[in-house]
């Protein structure tokens, strides 16, 4: 067995790129070694392969040569072509084996030594890592994430020379950039880890994280608080330091009067700091900051972090005070100067459309009392009118990711009712699959109106998403709409997908062609979301139910799929499926369900007609009551009768009147189930069904 150890020393690699780089490396190293240890620090990429075979196993190699016809002359002697082929492959005529029309050689190839393999593969694997943003340096010859300084390449205690992007390897590295910047000779991975620890570099990511987590707990505890849980900060911190430490700093207490969202955004997003919270989850004026040193003996880092955070908050306070001098309502005219999109007008015009769409939604899906009783034409409409006004506040210009929230906070401060300010606050939700929905029905309606306005508008002007390109985030908007429409708690907005699309098309005066592509677009979204959601629906179940209509109320679609999912595993599903398929085949192109009883000739069809009448009304009743599963079962119960019918009665007779009458009868039966799902789209493995 052999062990190999590698370190690439670069300049600071962006924190967000580390995880992906490690994954790529792991994948590319796996063919060389089953056991791979990979770790990174801000300026090191390190891997250790502790259990390498000394060499590859020997193997047999087959090489295809010229056609037999060309390889041997008339008397069976090797031609020029064959001897050339053998010479090229360093083989003899004895290596030739029989392989049909062609000559083939098989021979033993000795496995290469691990050193040779590593020398060939490691420079390629490391040198060809694709980073999200590459750069050149020095002479500009090479391109990588950051300039490469040195390479350690050690196989079983000895230097294994390699060269990556013009840098030759060796057996020395350096310690921490400022705390121990001396060179260190290394001979094994274990030595390396220890030597670097002494030189103020903790190689292991988990250890760096543990050190910080423990420190965070202690520092927060000392002021009676707990560090905010925020995985995204930890992920960054672990790649920002080689010798991790934390410092507790504080900001002026009076800044606590600023909206919490602003304080947290400044600390988290802009400063990569972690707020400390009280037991009741309110913010303290303390926070934690990372530092690349295990302590802050002179309080410099505490001072610096307080300084910069206070400066940021001073700005925020200035914006807050400036903004509060003007009411949201008074900002509406300013929206005229803020362009939404060249062909879709400014934000004032967009606001007007949001209001119109929201009102139309409410006409179809009347609001609960809470929204009706608010002043000024309803809470929903008020929220719709004000929802974009924060775009012209100083605060949102500075902290763009707080759009919506800032409007909500200002509306709350202006004493708008909860239903209004919460709707403004929430109207960008949901942005991602795991985001919460708006808290109120008004919020849901404004969110729907804003998002469908985006979709309809951009489709109208021909800017729909193509391939992986979706610059206006329309897929995300449509996904948010579907998430809201699927909801069935007190916030639900009971509007059909088709109605919502029609409202938006009308508001945009968009042509019918835009409507078609929007429907297609939404069909894809609905299918995707249902497939990946917690429902656990299968592709064919969704297809089958959607074929029976998907543009109505989405919770209804979910109920139909749920019913289908339940019955497909029952023993009589096969007969249901077969009945549906036979009906579909035989009645293709025939739409009528009107039956002339006088033309029913034999007893079997008369009986089926009676049953069909009973079952159809039963199924309709069950569908009306949304008992989809029972409805499918009622239909399935007809299967034996249908079988008798198909056996005893000829549908395709010459008499057109009789033929059509029989088709209508089948159609009537089929259409009952077809209101729930097109079961013929369900894919079954027949062997899985036990005979009843």
């Amino acid at each position, binding site marked *: 067995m052999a062990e190999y150890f590698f370190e690439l020393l670069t*300049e600071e690699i962006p924190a967000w790129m580390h995880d992906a780089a490690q994954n790529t490396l792991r994948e590319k190293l796996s063919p060389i070694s089953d056991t791979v240890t990979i770790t990174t620090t801000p300026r090191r990429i390190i891997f250790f392969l502790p259990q390498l075979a000394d060499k590859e196993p020997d193997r047999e190699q087959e090489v295809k040569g010229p056609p037999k016809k060309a390889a041997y002359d008339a008397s069976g002697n090797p031609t020029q072509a064959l001897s050339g082929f053998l010479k090229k492959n360093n083989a003899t005529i004895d290596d030739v084996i029989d392989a049909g029309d062609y000559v083939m050689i098989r021979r033993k190839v000795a496995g290469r030594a691990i050193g040779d393999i590593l020398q060939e593969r490691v420079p390629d694997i490391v040198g060809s890592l694709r980073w999200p943003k590459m750069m050149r340096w020095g*002479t500009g010859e090479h391109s990588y994430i950051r300039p490469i300084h040195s390479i350690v390449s050690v196989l079983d205690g000895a230097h294994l020379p390699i060269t990556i992007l013009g840098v030759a390897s060796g057996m020395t590295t350096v310690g921490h950039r400022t705390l121990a910047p001396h060179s260190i000779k290394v001979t094994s991975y274990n030595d390396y880890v220890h030597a670097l620890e002494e030189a103020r570099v903790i190689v292991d990511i988990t250890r760096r994280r543990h050190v910080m987590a423990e420190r965070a707990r202690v520092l927060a505890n000392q002021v009676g608080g707990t560090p905010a849980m925020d995985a995204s900060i930890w992920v960054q911190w672990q790649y920002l330091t080689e010798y991790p430490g934390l410092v507790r700093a504080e900001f002026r207490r009076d800044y606590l009067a600023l909206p919490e969202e602003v304080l947290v955004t400044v600390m988290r997003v802009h*400063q990569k700091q972690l707020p400390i919270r009280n037991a009741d989850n309110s913010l303290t004026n303390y926070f934690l900051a990372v530092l690349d040193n295990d302590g802050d003996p002179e309080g410099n880092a505490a001072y610096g972090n307080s300084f910069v955070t206070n400066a940021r908050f*001073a*700005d925020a306070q200035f914006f807050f005070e400036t903004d509060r001098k003007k009411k949201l309502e008074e900002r509406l005219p300013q929206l005229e100067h803020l362009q939404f999109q060249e062909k879709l007008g400014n934000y004032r015009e967009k606001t007007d459309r949001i209001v119109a769409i929201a009102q139309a939604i409410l006409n179809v899906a009347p609001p609960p009392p809470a929204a009706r009783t608010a002043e000024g034409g309803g809470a929903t409409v008020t929220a719709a009118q004000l929802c974009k006004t924060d775009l012209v506040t100083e605060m949102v210009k500075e902290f763009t990711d707080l759009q919506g929230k800032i409007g909500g906070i200002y509306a709350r401060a202006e004493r708008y009712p909860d239903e209004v300010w919460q709707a403004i606050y929430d109207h960008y939700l949901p942005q991602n699959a795991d985001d919460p929905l708006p808290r109120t029905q008004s919020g849901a309606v404004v969110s729907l109106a804003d998002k469908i306005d985006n979709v309809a508008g951009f489709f109208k002007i021909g800017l729909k998403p193509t391939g992986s390109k979706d610059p206006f985030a329309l897929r995300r908007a449509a996904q948010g709409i579907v998430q809201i429409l699927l909801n069935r708690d007190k916030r639900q907005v009971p509007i059909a997908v088709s109605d919502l699309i029609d409202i938006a098309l009308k508001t945009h005066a968009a042509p019918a062609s835009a409507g078609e592509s929007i429907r297609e677009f939404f069909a894809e979204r609905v299918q995707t979301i249902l497939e990946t959601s917690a429902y656990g629906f299968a592709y064919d179940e969704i297809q089958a139910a959607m074929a029976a209509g998907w543009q109505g109320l989405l919770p209804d679609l979910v109920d139909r799929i749920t019913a289908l999912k339940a019955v497909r595993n029952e023993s009589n599903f096969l007969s249901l499926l077969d009945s549906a398929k036979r009906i579909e085949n035989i009645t293709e192109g025939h739409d009528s369900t009107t039956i002339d009883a006088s033309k029913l000739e034999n007893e079997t069809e008369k009986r089926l007609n009676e049953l069909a009448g009973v079952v159809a009304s039963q199924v309709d009743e069950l569908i009306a009551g949304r008992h989809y599963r029972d409805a499918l079962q009622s239909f399935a119960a007809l299967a034996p009768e249908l079988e008798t019918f198909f056996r005893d009665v000829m549908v395709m007779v010459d008499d057109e009147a009789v033929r059509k009458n029989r088709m209508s009868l089948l159609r009537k039966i089929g259409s009952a189930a077809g209101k729930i799902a097109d079961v013929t789209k369900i894919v079954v493995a027949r062997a899985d069904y036990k005979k009843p």
Partner: protein
Amino acid sequence: MSRVTFQSLILTLQRFWADRGCMIETPLDLEVGAGTMHPATFLRVLGPEPWSVAYVQPSRRPADGRYGNNPFRLGKHYQFQVVLKPSPLDVQDLYLDSLRAIGLDLTKHDIRFEEDNWEAPTLGAWGVGWQILLDGMEITQFTYFQQAGGIDLAPMSAEITYGLERLTMFLSRQSSVYDIEWGAGFNYGGVRSQDEYESSKYAFEIADIDLYWKLFDSYEHEAKHCLDEKLVLPAYEFTLKCSNAFNVLDARGAISVTERVAVMKRVRDLAIECARQFLAAREALGFPLLRASNG
């Protein structure tokens, strides 16, 4: 640490970089938004000729003005700019040494290089690098230039831009920029606050919008005129004047979102043509600095 003043910082940094082979340039005598726009950076990073330079550059950003009321934001601040071409492999260590030179014991401070890439759309320029945080506060922008005037660069330049006010404030433990000492007993507020107030008032309230549009058009016209005559440095100066007129109009709120992109493109088109002609002119001269450095 001995008492740090605005000027002691400048003097120390100049000495430090001069000792490491940098020529000390003087500030450009035109209004610019950043030290990068000085021809000693923007034009000299082009082409194969080596270049090492350091200089202070007053940098005007009218929209950042706060009437002298904000302790951190200024409509005009001073940058200390260093350009090393080609970028030496030990450039980060050189930079850390410069911090030691101004009196920082780096074992007692936190220094981090956090990703921060730079892009100047009006110059057709971008680079990759970091903001350098000292105890959590950004004190320097560090950029490896990749492209300038739309031209891919080689060899590559490293640009180090120190924020002088920030650094002085922090080192002298002042909580307002106006309280730092400039030197010789003068403080920054005494020297600059009237300027900040008047310049803010001018840029936000008084500047004649029609005049600045006319100026913009005229400067652009004259830049093109110079380019037609193959006079690249005058052309570049008029390009910078366009850029400043744009900044004043922007602070004045006179440029709509729609116009913005188009106006920036007009400046960029000039900058790109300047870069192209500068490179051609240097080539016609046989890249003289290349010979000087070889001999």
